[in-house]
């Protein structure tokens, strides 16, 4: 062994050589190609069966279905305890292979690229996959036959006819539906009803009343308004966009989604940004820029923050930290001007939470049949009971008292009547625009409330996206 030890590699040389090797393991680069290697092996044999009235999607009744559920705010119980048993009640020979993940992209993307994806995928969470890109790559199955199929338990109607308006449209890319957006989220300003009752604060419908109330709240030593700048500034983007739509109708948002020149410098957007910028200047706690959503939401539960812009998942998300003295309630965003084209009761409610069948899986029809099961009235009601979220199945949870926050959101919905609008899609279509809007909202709310800067920045990014040929474009009407 003496030859070994006398070898010319001493400690320093070794370290230096190790450094040279380290070069080639330069930072953060090699992980990129870890998921490349896209062999489009289209020769996977897909299971099919014969179509019949009882089996409208023509599934192979003996073929297994693999599903992946995102394990997040909604939990997974609705899949394991409701949907799967319901599916197996009808199709006892089709074995459901279930798994849950919090890292959707990390787990699913390599399988999509390898040509062996699960049949039904719940694309959600912070590790969400860019669904537009999935559609573009032909990885999502066309759901036209699912939506045209009869509903599982609402007789005489197709699946599409049982859903709330806009639900199918929201998962439609270039004319074809590719996703079921299952949960139905109502957006508004959330507050503690008990705190407001105690202080005899009434719910404002005009901007003047709104700011007057914010002044009162401030005088009471409570931060009147807040959102988390560190990771949840898109809640604020939603607030600004909703106000813009109320001023100038949903067309304002459609133009924005369609990347129409001048869509962001539109008067309605400018007025909305100006109004919110003033709220930022006067009523927000500047340190919220550095906080995460859970931190600000906790402060609200402690009655340190009065109003918080959010969707109807909030109550369920905060269930563990909500004290008995706190009762969630939601109000529509107040009218910004007296000339707003939509009434004060108008509300933004949108389908969300993507579920899709993989086009290149072993059993895409089975995946669709699973979706049809989820869209049955029975499954939808159980989902709402378990998760305290409404679903896109219209009226599935009517008359069922679930929680005060959800009841309040449901009330706001019925007050809005016809004035419920879907909102915008640019945040899922164009991630760059989404990122820019988050930053612009933070700048507006925490750094001086410059509405013109907000509009100009967004207009510039929007036009840059429009000109970038490498970004797949979508349109809506």
């Amino acid at each position, binding site marked *: 062994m003496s030859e*070994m030890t006398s070898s010319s590699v001493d400690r320093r040389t070794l370290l230096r050589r190790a450094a040279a090797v380290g070069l*080639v393991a330069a930072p953060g680069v090699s992980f990129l190609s870890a998921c*490349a290697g896209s062999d489009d092996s289209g020769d996977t044999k897909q299971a099919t069966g014969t179509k019949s009235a009882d089996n409208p999607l023509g599934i192979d009744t003996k073929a297994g279905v693999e599903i992946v559920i995102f394990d997040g705010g909604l939990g997974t119980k609705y899949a394991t305890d409701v949907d799967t048993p319901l599916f197996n009640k009808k199709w006892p020979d089709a074995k459901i292979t279930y798994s849950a993940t919090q890292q959707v992209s990390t787990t699913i993307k390599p399988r999509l*690229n390898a040509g062996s994806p699960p049949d039904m995928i719940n694309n959600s969470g912070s590790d969400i996959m*860019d669904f537009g890109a999935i559609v573009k790559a*032909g990885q999502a199955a066309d759901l036209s036959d699912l939506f045209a199929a009869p509903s599982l338990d609402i007789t005489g109607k197709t699946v599409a006819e049982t859903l709330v308006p806009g639900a199918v449209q929201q998962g439609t890319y270039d004319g074809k539906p590719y996703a079921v957006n299952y949960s139905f989220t109502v957006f508004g300003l959330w507050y503690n009803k008990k705190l407001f009752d105690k202080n005899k604060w009434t719910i404002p419908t005009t901007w003047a009343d709104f700011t007057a109330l914010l002044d009162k709240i401030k005088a009471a030593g409570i931060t009147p308004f807040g959102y988390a*700048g*560190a990771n949840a500034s898109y809640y604020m983007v939603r607030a600004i966009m909703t106000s813009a739509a109320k001023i100038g109708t949903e067309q304002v948002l459609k133009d924005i989604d369609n990347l129409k020149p001048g869509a962001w410098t539109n008067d309605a957007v400018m007025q909305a940004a100006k109004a919110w910028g003033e709220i930022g200047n006067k009523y927000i706690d500047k340190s919220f*820029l*550095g906080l995460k959503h859970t931190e600000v939401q906790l402060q609200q539960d402690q009655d340190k923050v009065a109003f918080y812009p959010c969707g109807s998942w909030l109550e369920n998300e905060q269930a563990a930290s909500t004290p008995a003295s706190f009762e969630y309630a939601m109000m529509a965003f107040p009218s910004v001007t007296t000339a707003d084209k939509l009434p004060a009761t108008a509300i933004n409610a949108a389908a969300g939470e993507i579920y899709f069948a993989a086009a290149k899986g072993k059993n895409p029809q089975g995946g669709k049949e699973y979706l049809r099961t989820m869209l049955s009235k029975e499954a939808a009601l159980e989902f709402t009971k378990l998760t305290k979220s409404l679903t896109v199945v219209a009226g599935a949870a009517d008359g069922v008292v679930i929680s005060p926050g959800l009841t309040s959101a449901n009330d706001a919905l019925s007050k809005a009547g016809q004035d419920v609008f879907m909102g915008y899609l640019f945040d899922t279509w164009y991630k760059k625009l989404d990122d820019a809007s988050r930053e612009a909202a933070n700048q507006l709310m925490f750094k001086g409330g410059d509405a013109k800067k907000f509009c100009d920045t967004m207009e510039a990014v929007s036009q840059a996206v429009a000109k970038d040929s490498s970004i797949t474009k979508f349109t809506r009407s």
Partner: protein
Amino acid sequence: MRHGKYPFIIGFLVVPLALYLVFVVGAYLQMFQLSFTDWSGFGGYHYIGFDNFGKLWDDPVFWIALRHNVYILIAMPIVTIAIALFFAFLLNVGGKSKGGVTQGVWGSKVYRIIFFFPQLLALAIVAVIFGRVFGSDRSGMLNGLFPDSWSPWLFLADERWALVCIAVVLIWQQIGFYVVLFSAGMGSISQDIYEAAALDGATKVTLFFRITLPLLWDTLQVAWVYLGIAAFDLFALVNIMSVNKGGPNNATQVLSYQIYLNAFQNSQAGYASAIGVVLFFLTLTFAALTLRVTRRDAVA
């Protein structure tokens, strides 16, 4: 034994080498290939020549990220090495000499272990902990220490200081390793030399600059390259600590995070690969330059 040497060495190397070829070299080759494509990250792709690099040139965020990497590249190694050298010197030569033998300050054996602690924590955990230390409201550790009459410091939410906060964390985490590295280097410097110098009346400062530093040069060089590579990374810290994805207002944007955002969020894996290629050449150039510029005649 002599002619059995190579099979013996190869026997040890074959597995790591195979892993290295597949997961590092292979991945790099693929990255170079992808940088010339419009691959979104899903499905197929087309070759588009140098388009990605042209786009990179016009992308203001890329330049911001690059600038931040350069700032860190300049500041972080200097500060880390200076502090680590200082501590290593105190631990090894800084104390009173006893019986003619120089030694570290009192308790140096304990300090040596404590200094190494940060190195034991996963970077992700360090980032989460310091996220709380730098919390921007009263619940943040530093803000909690300040008197109530002060309005809270924003730290990571302040464009001017966000990058500094992240650099501080990186330096804090790295120092321990370099203290140990330099200590080992100093340990191998012969006591006779210190003794002789001390007899000639050299002060601690003279000892440091005339004896320790020159004899430690090779180790320093290695440290510089290591730290430089770390300065090009920063992904974990930025991903976990930064406000609003490398913000506020791109104040903490770095190249590695741009790769991540473009590849996995914006579905522009081809473009992200192009940034990867740039980062690869930057790292290579930096290391080659460092090794060349700092080259000296071997002392040992």
